[in-house]
């Protein structure tokens, strides 16, 4: 109550004690505040200015208005391809990752022998460094030397060019993303353990079978966690860099078919020294992610159930 009253009142009407309290509070949070202003807000604003300039880091920025944005939308031969690749990746990787991790979390929530072991195994992909994950998948999926194709060939089946064919590069990248969902599984598990047992007991008494309990209790009660994982996954997928870059390189694999937005941004910034264009790309991504996240939150009123309040 004290803090809400203080924040609602103008400075002049604060008592000297409240003022001292406010100053002390601000001083306490000042390390973070200074960091936030200097390392987040200032670069954010400056990057918008840079997006309106031609800037190569080595010479002073030259103001060129919206030219970088115009170039992206009208002249850059790769921009729309990159946008398509990224949206394809987001549309498929986010729901698949979400569905897979929710399913696995439910399986790991069941009373099975070795449950702790399986939980640990599922979490391993989340703690393995991205470069190791990428290298492992490179070795697994290689058309000639990969373990999976080796297995296929041993059964007399043809090799599958997972990473070297333009049609399969993106799906392969999505497969890697779906595999590395340990974090989401852990969050889902925590959420599942919060679902009151009494609901299941009541449903059992009412004669509901397992599927009905899953559909009418587990899913609705998990919707807050689903929303959380959806938003985090959505933002993360738009920003995906590590796997795409390590598996396919900065050029994005065969015919640029797996060239995603963040590696493209990096390529423009550090290979071509187009900091202005890269900043414009960053701002476009920021706007898309903000709008998308807002839409997800707005839609949540219709499908997310918060047990405690309406």
């Amino acid at each position, binding site marked *: 109550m004290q803090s809400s009253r203080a924040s609602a009142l103008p400075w002049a009407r604060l008592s000297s004690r409240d003022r001292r309290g406010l100053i002390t509070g601000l001083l306490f949070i000042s*390390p973070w505040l200074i960091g936030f202003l200097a390392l987040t807000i200032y670069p954010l604003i400056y990057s918008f200015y840079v997006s309106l300039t031609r800037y190569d880091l080595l010479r002073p920025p030259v103001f060129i208005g919206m030219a970088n944005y115009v170039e992206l939308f009208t002249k850059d*031969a790769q921009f729309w391809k990159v946008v398509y690749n990224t949206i394809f990746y987001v549309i498929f990787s986010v729901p698949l990752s979400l569905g897979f991790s929710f399913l696995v979390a439910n399986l790991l929530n069941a009373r099975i022998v070795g449950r702790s072991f399986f939980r640990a195994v599922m979490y391993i992909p989340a703690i393995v460094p991205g470069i190791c994950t990428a290298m492992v998948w490179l070795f697994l999926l290689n058309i000639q030397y990969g373990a999976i194709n080796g297995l296929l060939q041993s059964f007399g089946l043809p090799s599958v060019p997972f990473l070297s064919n333009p049609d399969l590069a993106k799906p392969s990248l999505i497969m890697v993303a779906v595999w590395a969902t340990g974090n989401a599984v852990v969050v889902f598990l925590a959420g599942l353990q919060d679902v009151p047992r009494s609901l299941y007991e009541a449903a059992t008494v009412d004669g509901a079978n397992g599927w009905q309990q899953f559909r009418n209790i587990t899913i609705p009660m998990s919707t807050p966690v689903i929303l959380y994982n959806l938003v985090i996954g959505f933002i993360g997928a738009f920003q995906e860099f590590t796997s795409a870059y390590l598996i396919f390189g900065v050029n994005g694999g*065969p*015919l640029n078919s797996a060239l995603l937005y963040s590696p493209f941004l990096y390529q423009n910034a550090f290979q071509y020294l187009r900091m202005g264009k890269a900043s414009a790309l960053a701002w476009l991504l920021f706007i898309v992610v903000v709008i998308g996240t807002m839409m997800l939150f707005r839609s949540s009123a219709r499908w997310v159930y918060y047990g405690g309040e309406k």
Partner: protein
Amino acid sequence: MANQLSRRDFLRMMAFTSVGAALAACGGTPAAPAEAPAAEAPAEAPAEAPAEAPTAAPAEAPTAAPEPAATGKTVQWWFAWGNLGAAVDKMVEQPDFKEMMGDNVLEYKASVNGEAILTALAGGTPPDGGSNFDYPNLWARGAVIPVDDQVAVSSLIKQDDMIEALWQSSFYDGKMIGVPGIESFIWWGLNYNAKAVEDAGLDPDSPPLTWEDALVWHQALTQFDDAGNLKQFGLDPYDAMAGEADFGIQSFGGFNWWDESARQINLNTETTAQWLETCGEFIKLIGPDKLSGLRQDQTIGGGWGTSFNAGIQTMIMEGYWHPGETQIQQPDIAQYNRSTWAPVPASRAGKKIMATGAHFVQLFKDAKNTPEMFKVAEYLHTNTALDILFKEVGWITGKLSWLKTVDPNAYPGLKFYIDAPSQVDEWIVGRRCPIHWFINTQKAELAEQVYRGNMTGADAAAELQSRAEAEWAAQGLS
């Protein structure tokens, strides 16, 4: 007890301390860019590090220079590749180097990536000198200083003792943009594995001198196993040096697509189309997916020259460093190495073309110790330094008097490169356009469109021209 510190006073004091500490930390950051890359600067060169391809920083410990003397200066030299470190380790131990440096100390950092050097330059804390970075690009953007005046009075660097084409490649806008040093010789030859050639029923003494003949060899050398896996192949015409538009296009058309004096790009030509179509035939024979898969495997195909060293690739377009580096990295393959003139189209049969260009020590604008750095660059022209570079890394600089002392049979295939300069009909000076990396990146995609059958060579050439012009205009380099 009137002066007892209250809880509130204590907390306030702590808050002030925290703010002060945060501000002090902020104030200390400008030195960071110069220090940061040290963690990525290994002393030991990775064995597989190529001469022409910057390598990722390996996990070796950073090269530590000796503690500077109290009165001396610390001269900083950053280079992008990893395999120079072994040679520099030896160089700094030489008595004449120590004498030249006096109280000054050379602090060198290997495997410095592009982001690190850009950060240092943008932050106003450049090293004194740099090598293996994008020379014309840095020059065109005003990041380096010309060295004409120092070279003019140097007793160690002499124009008449250097290969003329190489010397001329050191100039841009009429200025010498760096000291040609660490390795500066000739870049463009066909290197082949004579044993594989013989096993394929071909005559290793009659190498292909036209692209048409090279395709015949490629066909004979390309082999698959029963499951359809690529066991061995002839030539990847976009591998190593051949991946760059400068050399391929000149090979086919006898001209450079970059008109330096007019600042014009001429990629939309029949020559470019012919180059893309012809090279596409080589890859169609291997299979684009299979070649792509090979290149994704870093151990046998992804790095510079690794597929040749692994015995899978049997022909490769590289320069003089190929014999020495292969010998040092993979002696069992190097023993079969032979080198000859790079192919030209049948219409230009008999032309002996050769590429050259310098690898410089560039001096950075606003650096503190450029005169001292120049001395280090100068030292690279001494026979002592040249011998060390040749022995440790297999690198050569085109200093004529020193070249006479080189054993041409030190590495299999080297003799061709030692003898070649006097026989060249047509010189290519590569990597002159400030946006050449952009063009090579775009070329990689468009060449793939051609060999995957999605585009004709002519369409790809037109598209490459269009992208290059748009980028050139957008970069404001005119």
